[in-house]
């Protein structure tokens, strides 16, 4: 393709990417290296229905003047990234120096909000992603082998968890696992422990969220694999059968190699999706036991004190995390492409 034609061909999508991806990220970068101006404070008498007190107040006019002079706020470089609510470099250093064995160091890290969120996010990503791939593949195989007339309803039912809005789905499950709910009381009966509560202990909350994650995402993997199964060459399958291959061997040596690119695709999408886990934490009211990077961003933006710089810094750290996670997969894809060209 001549360069000129290529340029005009790529221009619309390049413009769209610039506008909808590059510009927002650039603005988040700028936001993350600024904090609000020091507030001009004054002490004034405040009276309400109950009493009068002398309290501190922001001098709105004087503060507005500062804001007008420098609308972006005060530049502080990377300080927000390193403060206690993010990477907490200082706390990590002191904990490393005063560590009392590796385990206590990890416990200390877990006490810091960013690392607490990161640990759940990573566990969620690395447990849910493989399970979703395996389960999705198994559902696809099962649906593919039932009589054609039943496939439509079977596909519809299998897709339901994905159709339900994540927040609603998690709320429904939240009430079901309540001690008075269907699942909650069933679990109490099975384990013969009337005090067993999935919402009370952090490990059980984690398991509940992981199960929810698999339940919610498996249909996506199923749909992709099911589509892939329709393209498996029938000739190869038939010749394998003539050679006396069992069902397992046919899956292992014909279907699986054929579906390998799909596994990469589902894995990639799921890694990204699961790394930004958010809705189940809100839906399950789980923030006491499990938080995620996305939840921290939400909490900064909708908390009592809105912190845009903090939210921006966590957003960029999340983007960085996604890049690191996808690196192996991307490198592999890049190498494969190069090989084809060569």
């Amino acid at each position, binding site marked *: 393709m001549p360069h000129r034609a290529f340029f005009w061909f790529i221009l619309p999508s390049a413009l769209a990417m610039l506008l909808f991806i590059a510009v927002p990220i650039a603005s988040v970068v700028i936001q993350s290296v600024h*904090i*609000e*101006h*020091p*507030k001009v*404070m004054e*002490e*004034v*008498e*405040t*009276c*309400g*229905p*109950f*009493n009068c*007190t002398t*309290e*501190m*107040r*922001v001098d*709105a*006019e004087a*503060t*507005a003047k500062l804001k007008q002079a420098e609308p972006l706020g*005060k530049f502080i470089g990377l300080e*927000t990234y390193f*403060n*206690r*609510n993010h990477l907490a470099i200082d*706390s990590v250093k002191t904990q490393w120096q005063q560590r009392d064995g590796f385990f206590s160091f990890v416990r200390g890290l877990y*006490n810091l*909000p960013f690392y607490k969120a990161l640990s759940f996010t990573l566990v969620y990503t690395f447990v849910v992603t493989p399970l979703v791939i395996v389960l999705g593949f198994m559902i696809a195989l099962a649906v593919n082998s039932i009589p054609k007339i039943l496939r439509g309803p079977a596909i519809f039912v299998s897709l339901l968890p994905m159709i339900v809005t994540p927040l609603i789905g998690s709320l429904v499950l939240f009430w079901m696992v*309540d*001690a008075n709910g269907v699942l909650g009381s069933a679990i109490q009966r099975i384990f013969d422990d009337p*005090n067993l*509560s999935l*919402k*009370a202990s*952090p490990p059980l909350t984690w398991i509940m969220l992981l199960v929810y994650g698999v339940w919610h995402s498996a249909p996506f993997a199923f749909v992709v694999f099911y589509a892939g199964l329709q393209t498996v060459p029938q000739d190869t399958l038939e010749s394998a059968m003539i050679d006396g291959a069992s069902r397992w061997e046919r899956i292992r040596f014909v279907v699986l190699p054929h579906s390998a690119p799909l596994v990469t695709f589902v894995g990639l999408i799921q890694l990204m999706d699961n790394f930004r886990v958010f809705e189940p934490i809100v839906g*399950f*009211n*789980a*923030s*006491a*036991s499990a938080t995620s990077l996305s939840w921290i961003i939400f*909490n900064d933006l*909708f*908390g*009592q*004190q*809105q*912190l845009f*710089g*903090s939210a921006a810094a966590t957003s960029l750290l999340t983007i960085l995390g996604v890049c690191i996670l996808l690196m192996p997969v991307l490198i592999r894809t890049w190498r494969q492409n190069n090989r084809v060209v060569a």
Partner: protein
Amino acid sequence: MISFKNTLLTGSLLLAFAGTVQAESACGIKQGTISILGNDFPALHAVVDAAEKCAGGDVTFSKNHSKDFKDVMIAALTADPAEYTSVIVNNGVLVTLMNDGLVKPLDDLVAKHGAALKKNQLITVDGKVMAVAFMANAQHLFYRKDILDAAGVEVPTSYEEVLSASKAIQDKGLMEYPYAGTFKAGWNLGEEFVNMYMGTGGSLFKPGSAELDINNEHGVATLNMLKSLTEYMNPDYLTFDSNVVQAEWEAGNVALSNLWGSRTAAVLDDEGSSEEVTSATMFTAAPVLGGGSTPSTTLWWDGFAISTNTSNEDAEATFIAMMNGISSDVANNNADEAVWLIDGYTPGAAAVGVAETAAAGAKPYPMVPYMGALHGAAGDELSDFLQGNEDAETALADIEAAYVAKAKEAGFLQ
């Protein structure tokens, strides 16, 4: 064509004329735009619905009741002209608006149209009236008379007595989890911390600064009491907000709770509960802590403020309409929906708890601008302590560290 146009013109002129007449007869407002933003609960509906009666003719009226009003108000009022001429605020929210200078002083309007207001309804900051309060709210003690009698204990007046009463109820096998609190991680848990801390008599901040002053014996006493209470609470307590606690109460699972005054009417009504529970539900002042005399709770008020970015004409129209909204008729017709601060209101049975709490000398929720940062930090960091992962001193140090980072970013600390 011309005659058609003329007819239209005459018609609209007539309409406008009719409108003016009608509006003047409604509340005496000639013209203006009134739009009100506020939280979503029955007492506020009563007020805003009464204010809406001033609409008609050249007076346009719109309202938005939303649980998430806090999240939209800053952007809505920063616009010029503001999206809403008035916001219904409370002590926590007014500060946020004042930090950015988004609400205007009301002294002129109060002098002109506020003859019916009591002096204690005026929220004045530095001598200027910034809001007009019309109702009070506080978390206070709900108790089940029948259960306490069966357990043979008096109505608790201190948290130590709450613990012993809960133990007695548990020991007699009357209830498994006799106490319930709004301990949901986040805002609710932060509020429980602030409430309990108020009972110690300590101050949250060093005087005249945004520096925290909680890592001391007051803070430890606060945390230890919160932890002791959880022993008598449903193990899911970190997911309990007011809605859940109310449901548990109405289901008859709970005998003691420090719950919001705005929930009393909902608990007593004939929906969602049984006669056995509602007839034995009583209210009293919030308990004290550790032999102190200040109830461990904070007093809240709800009131209206008027946007800076609104014309004088609209501001006046809004003020007059809101004055109609907070008339003594509205208060007396909705006597059980809230504890009204309005002149001429006779408190109902549901208002006893808030009234007694205020009379016992409870402190108002602090109106300092950096309160939100502390409230948020406490709500996020306390769950680790309650789950038994760390001791009180570490938890307090965590709250302080989280607060410092937030307050620095917001420009309150250097």
